[in-house]
């Protein structure tokens, strides 16, 4: 039961049930507002009956040439609404926008190497591990850069896994 709409500032005061989750980061205001000001189409929220926030996705589109891509910065669902495929719906929405509106070549995301349930979920959604980023999370834990090719990358070049891990300095984008 999902009304998916653009995220707006007032939702920041209503997403407590989602963000109390210990794996969901509560960023500073300029972070959220920069996303809203620059990529409002990549920041969506799902609402349930009774106007409860179920979860949200935030992301952006960036890159140049054939690395022009959508990026998932955060996707999270409140405990009450888990196991209902909501994350999938939100991810599909972001992929559609990247593909159809912004004509991006792929969508990527970073995930903690230890977060097995999340990696499994992304794999189910068609993401592959493109490369490992050494000590990406606070200089401690490795991150996995996962990618899914979109229709413009006809030959699926963007998702051919790199053979060696990279360091955070080598990343093209933050």
């Amino acid at each position: 039961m999902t009304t998916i709409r653009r995220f707006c500032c007032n939702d920041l005061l209503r997403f407590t049930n989602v963000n109390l989750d210990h794996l969901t980061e509560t960023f500073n205001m300029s972070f959220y507002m920069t996303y809203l000001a620059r990529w409002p189409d990549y920041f969506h929220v799902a609402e349930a009956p009774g106007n409860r926030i179920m979860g949200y996705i935030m992301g952006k589109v960036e890159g140049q040439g054939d690395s022009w891509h959508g990026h998932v910065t955060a996707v999270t669902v409140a405990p009450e609404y888990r196991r209902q495929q909501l994350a999938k719906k939100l991810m599909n929405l972001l992929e559609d926008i990247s593909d159809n509106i912004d004509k991006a070549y792929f969508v990527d995301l970073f995930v903690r190497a230890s977060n097995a349930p999340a990696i499994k979920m992304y794999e189910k959604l068609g993401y592959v591990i493109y490369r490992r980023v050494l000590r990406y999370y606070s200089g401690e834990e490795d991150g996995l850069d996962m990618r899914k090719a979109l229709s413009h990358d006809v030959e699926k070049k963007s998702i051919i896994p790199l053979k060696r891990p990279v360091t955070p300095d080598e990343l093209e984008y933050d």
Partner: protein
Amino acid sequence: MASKFGYAGGIPERKVRPIWDAIDSRQFKNALKHVTTLLAKHANSPYALALKALVLERMGKPEDAFSASLNAKEHLFSNDSLLIDDLTLSTLQIVFQRLDRLDLATECYEHACAKFPNKMELMMGLFNCYVREYSFVKQQQTAIKMYKLAGEEKYLLWAVCSIQLQVLSGNGGDKLLVLAEGLLKKHVASHSLHEPEALMVYVSILEQQAKFGDALEILSGKMGSLLMINVDKLRLQGRLLALACDYTAAADIFHKILESCPDDWECFLHYLGCLLEDGSIWCDEAVNDPVHPPKFVSCKVSHLTDEQFDSRISIASALILKLQTDTSDNSVRCPYLATIEIERRRYLCGKGNDDNFMDVIVQYFCRFGHLACFTSDVEMFFEVFTTEKKTELFGKLMKNNDTLSTSPTKALGLSISLSKIKQQLLLGDMFKSSASDVEVSCAQMFEMYCKNLPLSKGFDPQESMHGEELLSITCNILVQLFWRTKNVGYLVEAVMVLEFGLSIRRYVSQYKILLLHLYCHFGALSVAYEWYKSLDIKNILTESMLHHILPQMLVSPLWSELNGLLKDYLKFMDDHFRESADLTSLAYHHKNYSKIMEFVQFKDRLQRSSQYLVARVETPLLQLKQNANNIEDEEGLLQSMKCGIHFLELSNEIGAKSLTFNEDSESRPWWTPTLEKNYLLGPFQGISYCPREVLTKERVTSLKRDIEKKSLLPRMIYLSIQSASSSIKEHVVNGSATPGITLELKLLLERFAQFLGFSLSEAVEVVKGFSNGERSVVSDSNLIDWLNFTVFLNAWNLSSHELVHPDRNERKPLIWNILDSMLEKYIFEKVRSMERQLCSPWSDIQLLMQLVTEPLAWHGLVIQSCLRSCLPSSKKKKRSGPAHQSSSNLAHAITDSVQQLSLVLEDVMKWLNEWNKRPEDENSEGILSLLRNDGHNDGPGRVFHILETFISSMSNEEVGDRIYHSLKSWSPADVARKMMTGKLKVLMEFSAICESKLKLLQSLKQQIAQV
């Protein structure tokens, strides 16, 4: 910073590059060196001076930076031949912004634009300045100039958005909207529009003027294709049609959306509203608070004929049925919930019947009852029924549950849903079942949790476990049992249950919130604070979640923790206020116009936040409390607060402000539904269980009064100190009293008296009555106010003599005498009345702490002030004639007072020490003894008994290694000990405060001896 390079102000790039490099790498000293070298050659270059200012500001020298930037500005203005470039201006702008002088940055750009009227770059800078200053009219004018110059769509939209902001702030209204529409129309005629957001603004301008038809025409025309997400376009069209009351067309649109998004609940409500020609849902949008939208869909009585109504409902039902059959996705709930909503509409129109209505809910239960969100899905429908009918429905659900054969996890989900319905929607059957029946169901909940733990065997510790909600439910029933029996053991049992749950998985935020409130109730505030910290509440979450802990901390002696909370929160808010306009500017530049209004409105909402205003007032009060033992420190602090004048202004303004409340009250436990209410303290009858209270007008009024009253305090403390010292000076050197202070203090006393419900003269009479034991007006809720009032009254009386003419032979002025006895009486009273029970409620101790840290502390300042003026080191020590007599009376008053207050504090210390002396084991054993009944008799202990049995019986194979180890390492004695040490820690902090006050009094005694 690469973009910043150029030939700025006549300085070659290679000379400034090292400066920027040093700034970027935070080597400010180095940067300053380079700047000095640069200035040696270019002493009058505004750019070099601006760089100097920038470096100085970054080095933490705001005054020097300000003077350098003013110097730069002066040169910029004075040198007519100079080419003004954006690099100089933007550097200066950064400095002025960091120094909170946006006006000066604006002046620079205004000057530059006047001098070079056609330079787009400069105008852009000026526009940004106006955005930062929220000068909407000037924004508009500048944007129009830019539009005329460049002819770009973007600048026109900037102007239109500036117009919308003016309308939003209540200026201009209709005329301005007509202007905006005209501007857009003209542009569209010649250039059309090219950005989707531009189209959205155009539509919203038309919508604001109720020109729905025009808006629809535009959307269905060529420009409509700008909106690439088709559903978004359809939603907009549907909404406009509904607002235009073209319900048939609107319903068609929503029908289309539902076909592609069958799970869109809001769309279904819009669809149904349109079919039934009921536009309430759109009217509500304007009325409701967007942060606390209603849970229930309002609808009005239908004006349709019976036949029309029936036919529309059957159209809706047919669509829903189609959606149900067409959808293969099992997680799609909307078409099923929709059948309940349709039945509700029937019911509300007197056309449905209870059985049908209940049946559809039962069907929904059979399909989705196992989901965690089931209860919140159907909550709104339960509201329609009477209590009897609710019970009947519950019976039906129970019956159906028995017939459902399903997997263990689904069965568990169904049972949890039923328990939640019973607890939350049937109001816990509060007075219907006997306490022992409730105990049985409580034990069942807990047993269910234990029994189902094996389902989560092997789960990642980060992953939610099955049945987690059962412990919250168990806790809520235990609190209910406490409420009915007033047996505190149930609360201890609730603590045990939640702590147990957290030892198995430490991430369950709901447990932490419940626990922190229980710990607060017992006074183990330091443990509550630890749990709060573990929730990792930061940034915007502080605005919605700080309410869980802040009110309790404000009346606690955990000053450093409180200071941390207030500081972090205010920093977050103030940072946002500072940077918000820059982000709005970002939205302008990225052509995301719809975000502009949103950002401005959001900032405004936060600025009017009630919690923010409370924090702003409480922060200085905390500092004043912390420094009250040293009058010099306190005066220094007051000076930094402009002697309390700022807060006086806040106090004057607050009445006219409309406050916002941004707390997430959903996350609060039922027994403390708002900050002000704690039903664990009673009343134990007469309120309904689970009272989800909405924001009331009374709450707003009382909060405003509280802020208004508290913001008088810094000024009153300042004036009291002054008044006390001038009273002595007046005696000693005739005519040196400061009538201004006395008069102002009197005015503030008048205002303060009003908060107590009296005029000044009446309040004075009440205070005088205290000496005869008349105290009927004083209650726990206004005790601190009365005592604070008396402190300030006494201070005023010392210098005014308007009120009471003390008998020169008396040792103490009358009010002073009354004040000392009141402090003594109430502090003794609180100490004596408090039980030595381990788990007694905390409210009396809170009052005791407030007595010591507020009125007693302020009175201590008055005494210090008097004494300081009496001391022989003072220049005015020559005493003569009648003044001497009076001054000597004051000296006696001080001596008496110090003596009396010392005795009072010693008594408090004695009481505190008794607490501290009790052996730790005795304390924790005392707590555990409340739970030991081996589960056989009524009363607390049954759940605890199950818990202990469960721990000893569980095996590694059943629950897996991780859970098994958590079970085995969990110790109830540790929890009891934690509870006690938490409480003792708070008491020890209080003890340290009392001790420091005693030390102060002792040092005053010594000083008196020297007089």
